[in-house]
């Protein structure tokens, strides 16, 4: 073994044995520094003749490259070990809780109203609104409910004392008892054909386990040429099937009476008992089944169309109304209407909806 080979073996062994970056640096300086042993050997190459350099140069160059590579490799290894040690020392308990921010929610009434708007948008119905503080003409008279009509007694109306609607014409002001006045306002302000739904708050002087003095309704109105009870039936079937996302929805239409429609129809939806709970769907006449009243509807009374300034010989149509809170309860299983208006955060969290549960036709109108 030559002298250089011995030197190389010694240096590489020393480098491999260096256990700190400082020790490694000392070795580098000792070998490759200005006065280093390898540097010294390289310096001997200068004065040599080309022939001699050709003979003695390569081993020295090899020595330099090998030592440099060994130093770099060892340095990287030492640095990696140092980093590993540092990271190991930085370990924390990742099972500690993290703050995810507060959780908000959308009220079931709002959610169901959005669902209904989506379903009816697909059928071409726009959303209309009207005032909740109404006059008795829009709430009753125009809907063919005159002062002495027994149907007025059916509505437990909240009235305002000695107020007018601001025009000084002495109209009796009240809180609307249904969303039907929006029908009147829509027909008076627009031109047929009309297809609207009108969701909103309504008020009746009633309070018990299943009634609250304020609740929500949604009204539907179609005025066009050649509209019949058959169209009403299809529309309600389509709506309720879409709302409950069930093809097995069975409706039972019963003749009824509302002053503003003729013929008037009440609509029951069949349910079946599943584990003791009423689940919408199926034939209500089947054993164990039953019917739940969900809608009032009918063909718009000619007098109502006339009162709105339209020609009932030219235009006819249908109207329907239903309780939004009740639909929400039937679909999502709440059983206490009063809880809707209590603002209990625990209830809102349980029955409320995520902000991103936006009802869409493609994503579904139930959440």
């Amino acid at each position, binding site marked *: 073994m030559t002298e250089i080979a011995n030197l190389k073996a010694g240096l590489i062994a020393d480098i491999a044995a260096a256990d700190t970056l400082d020790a490694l640096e000392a070795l580098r300086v000792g070998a490759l520094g200005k006065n280093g042993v390898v540097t010294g050997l390289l310096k001997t190459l200068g004065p040599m003749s080309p022939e001699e350099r050709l003979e003695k140069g390569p081993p020295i160059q090899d020595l330099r490259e090998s030592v440099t590579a060994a130093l770099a490799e060892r340095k990287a290894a030492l640095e990696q070990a140092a980093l590993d040690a540092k990271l190991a020392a930085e370990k924390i308990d990742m099972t*500690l809780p993290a*703050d995810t*921010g*507060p*959780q*908000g929610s*959308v009220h079931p009434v*709002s959610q169901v109203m*959005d669902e209904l*708007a989506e379903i*009816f*948008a697909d059928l*071409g119905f*726009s959303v209309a609104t009207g*005032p*909740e*503080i109404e006059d008795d003409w829009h709430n009753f008279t125009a809907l063919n409910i005159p002062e*002495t*009509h*027994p*149907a007025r007694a*059916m509505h437990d109306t*909240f*009235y*305002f004392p000695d107020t007018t609607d*601001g025009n000084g014409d002495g109209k009796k*002001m009240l809180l609307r008892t249904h969303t039907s006045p929006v029908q009147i306002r829509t027909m008076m302000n627009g031109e047929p054909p009309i297809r609207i739904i009108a969701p909103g*708050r309504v008020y009746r*002087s009633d*309070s018990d386990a299943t009634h609250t*003095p304020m609740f929500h309704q949604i009204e539907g109105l179609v005025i066009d040429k*050649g509209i*019949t*009870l*058959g169209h009403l*039936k*299809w529309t309600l079937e*389509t709506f309720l099937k879409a709302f409950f996302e069930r093809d097995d929805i069975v409706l*039972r239409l019963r*003749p*009824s*009476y509302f002053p503003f429609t*003729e*013929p*008037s129809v*009440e609509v029951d939806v069949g349910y079946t008992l599943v584990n003791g709970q009423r689940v919408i769907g199926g034939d209500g006449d089947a054993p164990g089944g039953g019917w739940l009243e969900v809608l009032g509807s009918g*063909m718009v*009374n*000619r007098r109502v169309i006339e009162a709105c300034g339209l020609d009932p010989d030219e235009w006819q149509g249908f109207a329907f109304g239903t309780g939004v809170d009740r639909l929400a309860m039937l679909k999502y299983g709440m059983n206490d209407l009063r809880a809707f*208006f*209590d*603002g209990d*955060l*625990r209830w*809102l*969290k349980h029955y*409320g909806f*995520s*902000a991103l549960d*936006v009802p869409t036709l493609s994503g579904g109108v139930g959440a």
Partner: protein
Amino acid sequence: MKFTLSWLKTHLNSDADLPTILKGLTNIGLEVEGAENPAEKLGAFRIAKVLTAERHPQADKLQVLTVDAGDGPLQVVCGAPNARAGLVGVFGTEGAVVPVNGMVLKKTAIRGVESNGMMCSFRELELGEDHDGIIELSADAPVGRVYAEWAGLDDPVIDVSITPNRQDCMGVRGIARDLAAAGLGTLNALIVPTIEAAGPGPDVRIEDAEGCPAFFARTVRGVKNGSSPEWMAKQLKAIGQKPISTLVDITNYIMIDLGRPLHVYDMATLKGGLVARRGRPGEQVLALNGKTYTVDESMTVIADDEAVHDIGGIMGGEHSGATEATTDVLIECAYFTPERIAVTGQKLGLTSDARGRFERGVDPAFLDDGLSIATYLVTHLCGGSASEATRAGSPPLAVKTVTYDPAQCLALAGVDVADSEQKRILESLGFEVEGNDATFEYQDGVPVTTPATWTVTVPSWRRDVDGWPDIVEEVVRIVGLDQVPSTPLPRAPGVAKPTATPEQAIERRVRRTAAARGLAEAVNWSFISEREAAAVGGGAWTLANPISEDLKVMRPSLLPGLLSATRRNVDRGAASVRLFELGRRYLADKERPTVGFVLAGEKVARGWQTGKAQPFSAFDAKGEAIALLTAAGAPVANLQSFGEASGAYHPGQSGTLRLGPKTVLAEFGVLHPSLARQFGLTGAVVAGEIFLDAIPARRASGFMRPPYAPPALQAVKRDFAFLVDQTVEADALVRAVRNADKKAIVDARLFDVFVGPGVDEGKKSLAVEITLQPGDKSFSQEELDAISAAVVKAAEKLGGTLRG
């Protein structure tokens, strides 16, 4: 409206079974609310005779009976005062379920004495209200027989809901007629008895023909009032009407049977003749329900020379009613104007079976017949001799006809019903149909179809029918709505457009943004208490008839409802409350869509990273307000901050965001401590309201955005710190700096506020970072110096000096 199946079958000749009849009733618009056979729940109750009765050794009020219910003597402990040896009653044996309370009878010991069942009262069997003692049957009742069978209770009771337009179905006969039309039997003909009358009719007159256009009457003298015959008492009891006396029961029976209310006066109590007149101010009448009512001039009453005896068509008077001692009676069969009855009934808050019928409009052609049937029953059941009838006035008998084309059924209801079937239905409901059927012929060599034109005469008992849609309704309800074919609505032409208005679209965005930011949506009452309304500036709309004092004034602000909800949550232990509501405020001029929110309790709970719990601050309210305004599409960058919120807020820790000085888009801040206290809230409560209708509508500009390419050169940031007076608002300085060079400065952001060592008393240091965006080429040093100079100059206008 309740009736028994056997009662129905007195008018309806039908072999249809109960389920078929029930389904038929609902299908034709007479909704069945319930149907119950009392015998089904009474199968375990037998007729029993009390053999012996002795005092209970341990209790004064109890007796120990031996009872024979057909299977030999059984010992029973009984507390009824009328229990005695020899009594025949109704016995519930071991295992029977007591209808009134669902209790299962079993062998037990009562005060140490064995008891093997129960002797029952009417109330316990749900056969009446009588609970004074146990049932006493006639002595010859067959011991051991099932009581319900023997008593004829095996007769289903049907309860139907009658809509306000169907007075004719407030009598059993009307229901039978409807069922017959629907093919469930045939209607038996009604044979009205002829009255053998002697002597002139009573003195009855009309002074108020508007309220009472017809008043027919007869007297029957020499009657003996007593208990009703079994057939009548049984039917009345079955439907929950307590039999009172024959005379009273006759009027009730006819009212339920034929929908014809009547009244019977004891003539001994009357002074002079009876007159239908207006009430007089202050006049009072003690009605049959035991309450005294004060009538007025808007009401029709029946009075004699001295007193009012009847609130016309609603309720009779206590003093002139028939009693056991009555011998001479006057039977009233009148027609009262429906509108008058409705108004009087509403005013007095008085409902009765008679009112329910008169206000819907009884059959004006049935006065004579009704009076004859009543007179016949009185003379046959109570004896006596009848007078001629007096007929004061005349009922409104105008015959209504409707021109009808049977094709209108298809046009309105969408169901094709053969003309002949329509005619059959109408005639079976009592309508008369005349006129021409549709014809086809060649005229002048051309084929011509002439539509049918029918003249339909409406029966006198169908006040509700007055137009062709009513005729369609009659046909369709009898044919069945299930026959109406489901017909798709034609799709609206053109492409689908948004069906929500811009306002609704904004509300949806704001609602879901608030929920995404961690707020829970509440729905609070639209009405609040007067005190709550006063605390937020007072309400413009106060209900005349609130359901309670707490729900009286239409809210002028969403805060009271949210604060009440906050309080309820705090009371339930909620540590942190984040609530919002999207609804209307009710102002004098308009209902204004508004978002309100309340943040209370802990903003951040105590945590291993954050230490102690942290409360909400005014700036949390401001941040929420700006975020929601941004979601609503308000021009947030252009809004000005003013420190002048309403009195609901802490005057020094609240503000508004305005578009120009007048248009307030939002107010927010720390709640005024006195308002918080009013709602029982302690600690920092912050809140805000966004006035959605104040946000300017965004102009529709199509889908195209203005062109934009991100600048190639990087933005440059520069920091400045200015010393300004404490009174200078930060927003003013930032705006001034931002506007110092509108082209180069694209943003200015306040990042530090400092008061303390190095800053003079009365001054503060505000540090602002500005962002400069170069255009085509980088800023030169000269340009940067010029911008800096402009920034410093702008600050100087507000008294600011650059901090060294």
